[in-house]
């Protein structure tokens, strides 16, 4: 059973989004995603200032098992990246919704996201 904070929005690519007070959005991957990937050993981050298309490749997370793309859940400009992940990718495993955040963006449009309840239903549907 994975953890799902109530104040976040979620996507079917297993990312979470947090609306910040200054209008920006913080993005990371969910507890479910980090558990499925296993211990992360490398994270590739975008550049600050980079423009993202919705669905574009935003970051790469690599575990002992596999490397996976993280897609931008929303379009916009990257305003901050979590540089600590370069040295400590395991922060995503330890604290996916906190110290393990990946990117902060100034969004240029809306995105299709799910509430915690909807995401939980989506997760339940994945298990057969």
């Amino acid at each position, binding site marked *: 059973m994975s953890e799902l904070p109530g104040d976040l929005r979620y996507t079917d690519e297993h990312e979470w989004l947090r609306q910040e007070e200054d209008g920006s959005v913080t993005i990371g991957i969910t507890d479910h995603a980090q558990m499925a990937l296993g211990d992360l050993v*490398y994270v590739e981050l975008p550049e600050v200032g980079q423009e993202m298309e919705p669905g574009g490749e935003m970051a790469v997370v690599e575990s002992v*098992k*596999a490397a996976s793309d993280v897609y931008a859940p929303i379009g916009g400009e990257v305003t901050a990246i979590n540089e600590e992940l370069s040295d400590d990718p395991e922060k995503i495993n330890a604290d996916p919704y906190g110290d393990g955040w990946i990117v902060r963006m100034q969004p240029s449009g809306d995105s299709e996201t799910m509430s915690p309840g909807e995401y939980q239903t989506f997760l339940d549907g994945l298990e057969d």
Partner: protein
Amino acid sequence: MSEQLIFERSRSGRMAAAQVPTPASDDGIPAAMRRQDAPILPQVSELQAVRHYTRLSQQNFSIDTHFYPLGSCTMKYNPRICNSLALLPGFAGRHPLGPESHGQGFLACMYDLQEMLAAVTGMEEFSLTPMAGAQGELAGVAMIRAYHVANGNEERDEIIVPDAAHGTNPATATMCGCKVKEIATGPDGDVDIEALKATLGPNTAGIMLTNPSTLGVFERRIMEISELVHDAGGLLYYDGANLNAILGKARPGDMGFDVIHLNLHKTFSTPHGGGGPGSGAVGVGETLKPFLPVPVVGKGKRKGEDYYHWLTETELPQSIGRLSGFMGNAGVLLRAYVYMRLVGRDGMRRIAEFATLNANYLEKRLKEAGFELAFPARRASHEFIVTLKNEAKELQVNAMDFAKALLDKGFHAPTTYFPLLVPECLLIEPTESETKEMVDRFVDALVEIREEAKTDAEQVKGAPYTTPVRRLDDVKAARQLDLVWHPGAPSD
């Protein structure tokens, strides 16, 4: 018991006296180019060195000692005669820069190898120069790219790759400057044709396929795929990883493939594992002939006799170029040549028949023993997939635990967690080399492990217990990569 590093046995001044080279007073090397410090080498006696490496060799888990059903790797027996003949002094002592006239025997073998590989795959011509499978892939996609550029179609830079493909396929396409377009696999293991149609377009360079696929099933609609890709102006690349299943039975050339790489170290039984030298020979149809990597061995006449010679950039000016210092791994190529001559045309068919028979027998027995197959409706090719998701859920013992427990029972583990799209999977390839008794013992071992998991899951999760090292910390190994010994390095 883990073996000490040879450096840890080192004592100053200890040496194999008979092997110490005499310093040459005048060897012509200028003083400025001589090294100032002695190299850091272990100082041990000859007997210590012999014992160290003999012990390491005895710790090997290898095809010579154990059943090795590592899916997609085709760990078949390597006949000793291939080794003996490749080591004949005329081959082993030949200098790669020697003149053609002094290497006619070697060149004749290489020419015949090119011809035999072309015949068994239905391609027109082969180049033996790639040093490994991944380099063969690189050569293949580089040729596809060179073909489109030569035709003025610079914009064709999209390579389509099914989601079940080997990870090297998208990596290869990216290395060649192409964009990767991933397409889905249908529930029965075939490529999703509608997804393919939606992806094909004016930017399509080609598609990379493995057939049978890494899911262990034959791509039944290959002729339709071939027509669709060609109609869209793209070319078809065949990843030869799984050729063992169809050797002598069906030919990629007849399926419409334009370029193919073969892992001679898989299908044609040259030794591999442990990162040893491989060979990724590439074959092409008519379309891609001008782009083959050089050198290729050609055959002509001199004074009425057959005469073999190198074809280089002069004869193939559109070649994608050279991929190795000379022409691939000569010793590996010779072993593959001997193997093909040894088994002959009929033997090739028997290889495919027994490889698929062994796989289907093993698959059926595991199904009867209650293991879940990933594609129960399909006949296996030379390999198949078992998913242990039920065991992982009900017993909390996953595919990795089964793999480790197999080591204690004297079996190399199958491929685990690949292909990525099947959860908790074991990809099992028995090859044609194994007896029915051995395959039966392997089934018994998996059943025993499952029984042990029911009574004592922790015992299984702690495996292996009998190997020189237990479970390695693969996360630490990836995060703190440390491969080179240096003085003062910690001893573990």
